[in-house]
């Protein structure tokens, strides 16, 4: 991953060290997270609250609805809803990414980085890597809570590995999008709201109820939006349902989103700084 400005380097003034600089920036972001853990806790809190709400409040009713049998209930719904909650953990984490990127851009320190002979992209990759790690921690916590409330995945080691791979891909893609969105916002307040649609999208897909239960227009949207194939693939991997070509759609969306987010981010970062 190299930024175009890197190509113009002058041989007399040394090379760039994108990996080393990214590691430095990553350490900076991890230190922020460790020192001020309230943000991470808020980000983890949301999917956990939704999980408990949907399992204990709506679980019984929705469970019998989706399974189409009166005998089905909360246990069946846990299996259905947890993949959506897992994906929601990622969308929740990237809200934090957008906020911390926007905060960074308002601070003078980024102007300082821009005047230094460093691999410029490292300012962004530091955020990306930090957020991926933050998401991984959040996912471990949320999956742990899911197991406690009765989630019993049938996945074997290979399926788990594939699920982890998918989640890393989804996180990576959404984080790049969030890094761009965080830069595009002129204030931290805007940045904290701009990715709200990402949190809502799983509801407008197959995350909480099957798309067949939705009215025609909504159903069409639900079946073609990116979160449906992602959630379907994850659900298939964890609980052994059919996946079909959903996996390809899921990967396609991830690649598209990561690439778009990266290019947009890079363009925003290289634009002229202030006046």
């Amino acid at each position: 991953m190299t930024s175009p400005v890197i190509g113009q380097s002058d041989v007399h003034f040394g090379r760039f060290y994108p990996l080393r600089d990214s590691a430095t920036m990553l350490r900076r972001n991890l230190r922020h997270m460790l020192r001020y853990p309230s943000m991470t806790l808020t980000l983890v809190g949301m999917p956990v609250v939704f999980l408990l709400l949907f399992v204990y409040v709506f679980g019984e009713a929705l469970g019998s609805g989706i399974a189409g049998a009166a005998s089905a209930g909360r246990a069946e719904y846990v299996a259905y809803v947890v993949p959506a909650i897992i994906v929601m953990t990622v969308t929740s984490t990237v809200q934090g990414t957008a906020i911390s990127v926007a905060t960074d851009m308002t601070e003078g320190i980024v102007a300082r980085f821009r005047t230094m002979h460093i691999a410029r992209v490292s300012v962004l990759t530091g955020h990306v890597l930090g957020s991926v790690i933050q998401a991984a921690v959040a996912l471990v916590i949320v999956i742990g809570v899911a197991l406690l409330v009765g989630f019993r995945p049938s996945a074997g080691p290979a399926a788990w590995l594939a699920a982890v791979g998918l989640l890393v891909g989804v996180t990576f893609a959404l984080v790049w999008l969030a890094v761009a969105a965080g830069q595009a916002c002129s204030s931290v307040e805007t940045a904290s709201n701009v990715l709200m649609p990402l949190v809502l999208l799983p509801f407008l897909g197959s995350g909480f109820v099957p798309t067949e239960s939705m009215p025609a227009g909504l159903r069409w949207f639900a079946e073609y939006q990116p979160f449906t194939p992602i959630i379907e693939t994850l659900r298939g991997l964890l609980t052994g349902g059919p996946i079909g070509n959903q996996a390809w759609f899921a990967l396609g969306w991830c690649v598209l989103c990561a690439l778009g987010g990266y290019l947009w981010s890079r363009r925003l970062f290289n634009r002229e700084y202030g006046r």
Partner: protein
Amino acid sequence: MTTTHSPPAIAMNGLRRSFADHVVLDGLDLTVAPGTVFALLGANGAGKTTAVRILTTLLGADAGSVRVAGHDIAAEPDAVRAAIGVTGQFSAVDGLLTGAENLRLMADLHHLGRVTGRARTVELLDRFELTEAADKPAATYSGGMRRKLDLAMTLMGEPRVLFLDEPTTGLDPRSRRDVWRIVRALVADGVTVFLTTQYLEEADELADRVGVLDHGRLVADGTPAELKRRMPGGHIRLQLRDGDGLDAAARVLGPSARDDEALTLQVPGDGGIGALKDLLARLDRHDIDVTRLSIHTPDLDDVFLALTGNSAQEKAGVS
């Protein structure tokens, strides 16, 4: 000066930059010799910060050529970045990290290695009197401490050309003097300093050469002494006891500006000993009781009234 043969540290030729319809820099030409201090003076909005942002590769120029440390800013921005250090008007420290961590971050970004980086951190903390606060988050620092940390971070990379954009604006007198002391030490080591300021006093203290920027143009360029000589506006201010005294003094001292409410009289003059003796003798001869006397040397207000008189009045008329 022995530096006549070395290329200038900063050279700009016909530098122009506008934002939308607003021309901020309108054909700026200047050179700064290595190892010297150049101070760019100007009011808010004169274009000082824009000039610094262009010189430090944050902004592009619309026209003109600019070379910093021998490299063209447009063609080789990375070579320029490797040679410069910048301390902007707004503090560029990471408030969530401690002072020591901020410095180590800079050491890592300059690829100094763990041992050297730590040693330089300790040294800079000591030099900037920040050792005690080293392990506190920078967000808890006072304005003066933040500025010192900011400057210390800039110096981690040992820049050859240092840009300071209003380095002491908003600092208390003691911190201001600390910054001046540090800048002098750097110049003694051969660093070139380009600073912007609103304070003539600061330019006077530090600069070898001063440029005055007004409406994107350099309206004066010279040593502080040269500049001050071109500037009228020095005056002696007398405080009288009563209205009669004021009348008498105004009569005796000739053309002067009087303020009947404050009972003060401003007599033009540069405060030279001869003129002062003469003035006191005349007051004495006429038994005029002066309660207070003060001498005012030209300040930036005078600079602007003198050099940019018309435009200043225009501005006052518009607003």
